[in-house]
């Protein structure tokens, strides 16, 4: 198996995630797209871990999974707070700080 297969697969998922983050207006959907991006990074780490025969990459993939859990917890708390204050989770409307 070529190492490239996995790297290009991860790059494809990453770019789809970037598209989602840029295009979506719904706060929860943006969080989902961020999960996609974090997963693509994990694929790279695990692929290089297998390529080098070193477990370190897998350890860092586990760390990233834990960070993703923390990120989605705090992110959803922020989205819920925004919904409670503005009755909307449209991130294009979150412009209170706009000059």
């Amino acid at each position, binding site marked *: 198996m070529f190492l490239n297969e996995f790297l290009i697969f991860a790059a494809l*998922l990453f770019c*789809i995630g970037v598209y989602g983050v840029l295009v979506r207006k719904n706060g929860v959907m943006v969080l989902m797209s961020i999960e996609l991006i974090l997963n693509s990074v994990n694929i790279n780490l695990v692929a290089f871990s297998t390529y080098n025969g070193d477990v370190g990459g*897998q350890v860092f993939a586990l760390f990233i999974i834990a960070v993703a859990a923390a990120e989605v917890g705090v992110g959803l708390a922020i989205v819920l707070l925004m919904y409670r204050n503005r009755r909307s989770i449209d991130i294009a409307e979150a412009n209170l700080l706009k000059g």
Partner: protein
Amino acid sequence: MIALLANEALSSVETGVANGFFFVVAGVAVIAALKMVTTQNVVHAALYLLVVLTSVAATYVILGAEFVAVTQVMVYLGAIMVLLLFGVMLTRAKLGDDTDLDHDQRWIGALVALVTFAVMTYSVVEEFGSTKLPSDFSATATEEVSNQIFSTYIVPFEALSVLLLAALIGAIVVARRD
């Protein structure tokens, strides 16, 4: 000699099977990811994300990272998906189609994504054009992963514990109704 040849043929067949399996899994993941960022229904998007995350777990199995795959299934499919679905339900009672989920300038987003993909693919092909994975890699033992976590990577591990605690407290403080 014959046994060696047979063994080699078997291992190349196995690699071929794993390779074909990978292309199926990757295809499913990419299609589901595209559907996820284009669908107009928030709950459907969450379910497509489920398909992507499962496919990524299958990719980990192909790469021999079984513990990471199991963790992916437990944490992502078990916990994070439930959290996201709760987020959908708590912020919007409407479960049907939505007409207003995308920005108007979506082609700018598509352009950025395409250019990023072109740059990444070019650099990856340039650097690892014909690099192959070792043909005889086997599944990593969980024991090996845990030994590494609790010896070499003990400091990041402890920092991560504190991060999780801080995120937990932070989420409660932010979302508390007072």
